[in-house]
């Protein structure tokens, strides 16, 4: 059984006992434990179930590579699925549950899948569930979906109470990984004067060295780490962050860091996670290496563990995975585990070394301790179900013939080491195959390059294929210096510390154990523990022609689990290459994608949730609208009042009331969102003539003109009233959505096409509050405020004037989008609220009524005025809308003119704007299409027009609509049929003039 030993545990504090629960069971651990070490200390070998066969799963690793020990962490709003127990720091009150089983972890019905495993081979689902067709949706898929997934989904109404944030950092040298290599590289770069940021994913610096032994500069590695960290912290130009993982490397030196601030102490104030967005001049990844499992039958039984992990649990946490541990290996490193176990007083019945030639000095040391060492031996099969009970031994050379059975309760395996090359690969770094060490390592000649085309990334230490302590430190020093040098810093005289580690005999690649394992053994030899991919599955994929490693991965789901194949990729690749009879480098490797380990969605979203999700733009009158019950409509990032329903009044009724009040008395509209762009310069007139389809250069100062803007592709993009301020100055009003877009559009043409023209523009939209004073009483109320002569003579229709209105500096435009007598008054933004309130006071006797966007839309529709976004949709040209009067014939050029000459644009068959009135007075559905006889070549009903705007007009007491109809203007009076959403029911409407109300404009010319 796995237990906590009486002593030991360099990371745990035995004076600080922590309580936690697993599947409701109350357990205890120590401060410094991970959830995994604490579970093992409580003999919780079984921690989860695999994805496909629901096989019992135990802890196999001690770090980020763990594929098995995944738990649901937390409760209620804080439920987090698929959390790795091996990287979860224990805290008081932690609550975890295991995943993917029913009814319980010990007794899981899903395990029945194991019985039919022979059928459920790689890609079985592509070959069945085909007939009968309806079954996939109604029976097969629902069944498969039920068995899908690992972690529990949070409650649908769960609302994450924690906060998240981002931070940007710019550094010279970024070091990823805080093991001895990372520390040495950081020291080298720091000493050279570079600004250095070092990120370490775990809470501890020093990595494996303190566990693996040897000496650095004559001292114990742990002592050296302490001293080096102290030296780094003393450097003003070095910043070290623990619990922060290098998550991904992107182009141009952009690196994502994932900092977990209080996962280990949820009671702390402040954000839970912080996403670092780092721009680094040079990046050094010192991410170490990951030990590989060996592929033998039953290598997935709880109790079978990576040799290095078993060492970690013993040294770091004082936890033994078992009392009797058999060690199986193809290299010397695993002997360290055997030696440490033995020294801790635990039983090591045997070390099975697959190498005929056996091990080196470490093997001798093991023998000296009285451990039985067998060479050229392998595990034929592990005995036991939910935990190891023993191993059957065979010769590595054979097919698995039984030699002996050894009872044991744990197996420590080592298949050699794979450098962590993920980050190197994220941004295009290529790998080379190192035959001697049987590993992929970064190819320095094909490094990821930065903005300048030079390498931006280098790798140090074990991650670079240097597994021996001394080599690691020498490489790290060199990489750190080169990184600094690449940025123009001059490395000092410092040198790598001397390190001593026991000499090791070479490793022998072992991709299957035993070498010629029988069919029944290969079917039990796991490659991917979480997704249940076995040696036999990869061999089947090869047999069926899935020869690309990407094909095999996708066909078998190898390496697609939450660990992304950290343990299985190389073994799987080797298995595939042997099945194909090709060398590993020829078969290639898969590309690694960010992130290195999963990062929370919350962290990616950062601060942008709730009210900070997106900015809301507010006019100076926003608070007034809010206080007066505005029903809001988002328009771009603005909020505009749609209407102001009164208590007990429906939104629709409010809109009707607002229209009537405006047409009969006085309406007030907040028009502040309309764009106001100043265009000034000697060439302003010429420029305006290019921007607008109209002739603007002839506009007289003091006058206004309605103008249209088209894209170079001919389509109508914006409209509005232009006021000529003086000879050289125009003020362009744009639509609410248009202000920034149109200003950018103007600047683009000035900067990139007509840069020799003397024109400046300025976007003054937010400088002013603008209020539309509309209705028969508009002039009366403004006269009451006093200060300006706004009589028809002094300020005729389409004129503007500047002055003081009720003591406020104002610019008054006499323009109308409603057909009523109407003035738009602009005052400095901070005076807007004052003007608005004075208008309401003075207008009370005229029934002053604030109106919203919907009343605005209805009134403009009653007058047949088009609305950008309603009558236009990006495919409509002014000519479609009967706006020829606004398109200058005299000008030989304007943006869009050439485009409008193309065959399809001049086609007489284009749909054109008309008014539509239903025969019974009802309201046509917005967006409805008018049907035409017959069907097209694809069997679709032919159409001859569509509704672009449709409203009930309170003024006329019936439905009115505008639409685009085939040759519409030539078909006045004709009736056409519009299809309802069912495509069958029809609503007939008559084609009429789009101007439904006051066709002669008498109301606005008073």
């Amino acid at each position, binding site marked *: 059984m796995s237990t906590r030993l009486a002593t030991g545990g360099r990371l745990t504090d035995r004076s600080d006992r922590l309580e936690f629960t697993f599947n409701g069971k109350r357990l205890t651990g120590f401060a410094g434990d991970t959830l995994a070490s604490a579970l093992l200390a409580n003999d919780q070998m079984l921690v989860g179930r695999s994805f496909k066969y629901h096989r019992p799963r135990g802890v196999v690793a001690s770090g980020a590579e763990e594929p098995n020990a995944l738990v649901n962490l937390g409760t209620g709003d804080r439920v987090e699925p698929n959390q790795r127990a091996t990287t979860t720091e224990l805290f008081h009150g932690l609550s975890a549950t295991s995943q993917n089983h029913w009814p319980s972890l010990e007794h899981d019905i899903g395990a029945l899948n194991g019985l039919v495993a022979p059928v459920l081979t790689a890609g079985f689902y592509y070959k069945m569930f085909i007939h009968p067709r309806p079954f996939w949706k109604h029976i097969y898929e629902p069944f498969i979906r039920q068995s899908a997934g690992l972690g529990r989904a949070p409650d649908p109404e769960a609302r994450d109470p924690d906060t998240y944030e981002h931070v940007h950092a710019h550094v010279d040298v970024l070091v990823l990984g805080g093991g001895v290599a990372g520390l040495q590289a950081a020291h080298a770069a720091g000493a050279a004067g570079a600004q250095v940021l070092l990120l370490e994913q775990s809470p501890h610096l020093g990595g494996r060295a303190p566990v693996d032994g040897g000496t650095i500069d004559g001292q114990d590695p742990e002592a050296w780490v302490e001293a080096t960290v102290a030296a780094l912290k003393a450097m003003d130009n070095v910043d070290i962050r623990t619990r922060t993982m290098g998550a991904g490397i992107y182009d141009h030196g952009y690196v994502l860091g994932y900092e977990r601030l209080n996962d280990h102490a949820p009671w702390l104030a402040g954000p839970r996670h912080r996403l670092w967005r780092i721009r680094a001049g040079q990046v050094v990844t010192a991410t170490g290496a990951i030990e590989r499992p060996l592929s033998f039958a039953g290598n997935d039984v709880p109790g079978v563990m990576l040799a290095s992990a078993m060492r970690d649990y013993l040294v770091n946490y004082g936890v033994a995975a078992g009392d009797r541990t058999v060690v199986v290996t193809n290299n010397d490193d695993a002997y360290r585990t055997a030696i440490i176990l033995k020294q801790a007083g635990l039983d090591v019945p045997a070390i099975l070394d697959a190498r005929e030639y056996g091990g080196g000095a470490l093997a001798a040391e093991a023998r000296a301790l009285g451990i039985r060492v067998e060479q050229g031996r392998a595990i034929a099969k592990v005995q036991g179900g939910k935990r190891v009970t023993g191993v059957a031994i065979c010769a590595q050379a054979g097919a698995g013939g039984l030699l002996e059975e050894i009872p044991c309760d744990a197996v420590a395996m080592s298949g050699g080491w794979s450098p962590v090359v993920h980050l190197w690969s994220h941004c295009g770094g290529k790998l080379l195959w190192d035959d001697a060490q049987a590993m992929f390592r970064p190819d320095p000649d094909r490094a990821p390059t930065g903005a300048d085309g030079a390498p931006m990334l280098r790798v140090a230490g074990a991650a670079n294929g240097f597994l021996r302590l001394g080599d690691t430190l020498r490489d790290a020093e060199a990489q750190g210096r080169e990184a600094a040098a690449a940025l123009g810093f001059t490395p000092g005289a410092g040198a790598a510390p001397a390190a001593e580690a026991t000499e090791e005999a070479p490793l022998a690649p072992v991709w299957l154990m035993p070498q010629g394992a029988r069919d029944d053994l290969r079917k039990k030899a796991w490659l991917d523990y979480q997704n249940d991919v076995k040696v036999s599955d990869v061999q089947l994929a090869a047999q069926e022609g899935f020869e690309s490693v990407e094909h095999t991965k*996708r066909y078998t789901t190898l390496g697609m689990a939450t660990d992304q194949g950290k343990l299985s990729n190389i073994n799987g690749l080797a298995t595939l290459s042997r099945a194909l009879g090709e060398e590993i480098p020829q078969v290639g490797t898969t590309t690694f994608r960010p992130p290195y380990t999963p990062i929370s969605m919350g962290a990616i*979203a950062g601060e942008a949730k709730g009210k900070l999700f997106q900015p809301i733009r507010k006019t100076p009158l926003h608070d007034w609208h809010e206080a007066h019950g505005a029903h809001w409509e*988002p328009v771009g990032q603005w909020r505009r009042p749609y209407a102001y329903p009164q208590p007990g009044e429906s939104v629709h009724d409010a809109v009707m009331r607002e229209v009537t009040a405006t047409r009969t008395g006085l309406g007030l509209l907040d028009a502040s969102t309309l764009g106001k762009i100043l265009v000034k310069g000697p060439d302003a007139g010429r420029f305006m003539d290019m921007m607008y389809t109209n002739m603007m250069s002839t506009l007289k100062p003091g006058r206004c003109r309605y103008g249209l803007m088209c894209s170079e592709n001919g389509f109508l993009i914006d409209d509005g009233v232009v006021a000529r301020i003086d000879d050289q100055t125009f003020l362009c009003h744009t639509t609410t959505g248009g202000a920034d877009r149109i200003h950018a559009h103007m600047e683009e043409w000035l900067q990139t096409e007509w840069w020799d023209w003397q024109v400046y523009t300025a976007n003054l939209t937010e400088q002013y509050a603008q209020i539309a004073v509309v209705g028969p009483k508009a002039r009366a109320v403004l006269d009451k405020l006093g200060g300006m002569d706004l009589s028809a003579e002094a300020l005729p229709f389409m004129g503007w004037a500047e002055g003081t209105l009720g003591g406020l500096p104002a610019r008054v435009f006499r323009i109308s989008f409603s057909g009523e007598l109407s003035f738009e008054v602009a005052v400095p933004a901070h005076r807007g609220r004052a003007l608005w309130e004075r208008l309401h006071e003075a207008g009370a006797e005229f029934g002053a009524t604030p109106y919203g966007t919907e009343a605005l839309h209805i009134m403009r529709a009653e007058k047949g005025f088009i609305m950008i976004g309603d009558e236009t949709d990006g495919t409509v040209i002014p000519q479609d809308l009967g706006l020829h009067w606004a398109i200058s014939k005299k000008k030989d050029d304007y943006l869009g003119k050439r485009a409008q000459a193309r065959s399809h644009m001049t086609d007489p068959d284009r749909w054109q704007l008309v008014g539509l009135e239903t025969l019974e007075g009802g309201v046509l559905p917005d967006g409805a299409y008018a049907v035409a006889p017959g069907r097209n070549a694809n069997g679709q009903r032919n159409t001859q027009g569509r509704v672009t705007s449709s409203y009930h007009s309170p003024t006329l007491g019936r439905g009115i609509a505008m639409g685009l109809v085939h040759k519409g203007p030539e078909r006045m009076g004709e009736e056409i049929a519009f299809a309802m959403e069912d495509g069958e029911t029809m609503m007939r409407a008559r084609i009429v003039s789009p101007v439904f109300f006051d066709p002669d404009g008498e109301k606005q010319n008073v």
Partner: protein
Amino acid sequence: MKRYSAFALVREALNGHKGWERAWRNAQPKAHYDAIIIGAGGHGLATAYYLGKNFGITNVAILEKGWLGGGNTGRNTTIIRSNYLQDPSAAIYEKSRALYETLSQELNYNIMFSPRGVMMLAQTEHEVRGYRRTAHANALQGVSTEFISPRRVKELVPIIELNGPRYPVLGALWQDRAGTARHDAVAWGYARACSDMGMDIIQKCEVTGITREGGRVTGVQTTKGDIACDRLGIVVAGHSGVLAEMAGFRLPVESVALQALVSEPIKPCMDVVVMANTVHGYMSQSDKGEMVIGGGADGFNNYTQRGSFHHIEETVRALVETFPMISRLKMLRQWGGIVDMTGDRSPILSKTPIEGVFINCGWGTGGFKAIPGSGWGFAELMAKGTSPLTDPFSLNRFGEGRFIDESVAAGVAH
């Protein structure tokens, strides 16, 4: 070809699965083919399949630079829907959706078409109007779709937040016969069927040149030698511009990176596909339990298959706001693909200035859902020189100003 079935599986299980044949032959190029398709992605393989099935043209080679299905077919978010606004789009996407319904049986390969329904949220008045217009158009195009209420949205998607502080859900355009499929399986299924018809799928074979005589194509040069052909179909998505240059003509396309991501797998919590275009994000849950999320496209030309991270950020932000419960889920993997964008964001299926050369490209972000319909129409175009499905998507529309613009309706994203 050995047929796939549950029975076959059991039979094979009993003899250790020794009997399974290769899904497709490992072919070497012949000297001449009636038709060559460049690009063994979904569109290319489907084109070859329907050339054989509908027009009896089976002396066909499909050339693939890398491994088949390794481009955008294997990198997308597998959404299948057909409720497009414009007639030509609705026609080809609905043809495609209909073919998907029976594709597993047709190919005897389970491509796992799952008509779970696709929902496009309307979160502004503008979107409501846009989707209502689409619903009206679809009714006349024979595309079944409907505009549904917020209540119905919540019934279908319990994890959604209807009253987000920024954009409340005002309704949605809902197509219940839309859904998803297993992307790799689509390529593998067509490949297996093509190979079975005697067509040659030649992987790791890069086209390096296109030979012409008097304005007519005569063959291609490849890393596996020269191959002659009468007709040539270029179906290479993001790399269309490069191939077009070899053939000697230009295209109105630009290649950009498009990204996607998946979460770690969790137990089923969302059975439909939801697209939220106002906030730029869409999400579904795969049969494996991963939340599959589509990100945005870069605004600059890019062939790296790596996009810019801020698109991932924008998308995740939008989805955490729309589905707050995903906040504590984790992003497992992100990746990018190269898509080619045209001037009107609609595809090009067309003859080219070079006689005998046909181009199928410009699917932008919407290619996967179109695979069967695109293959069907493009095969007809290559065989007969015209097809009602593809004719509106010809190259000359840009010169004439006859665009097929889907961004017209609110549903911009594919």
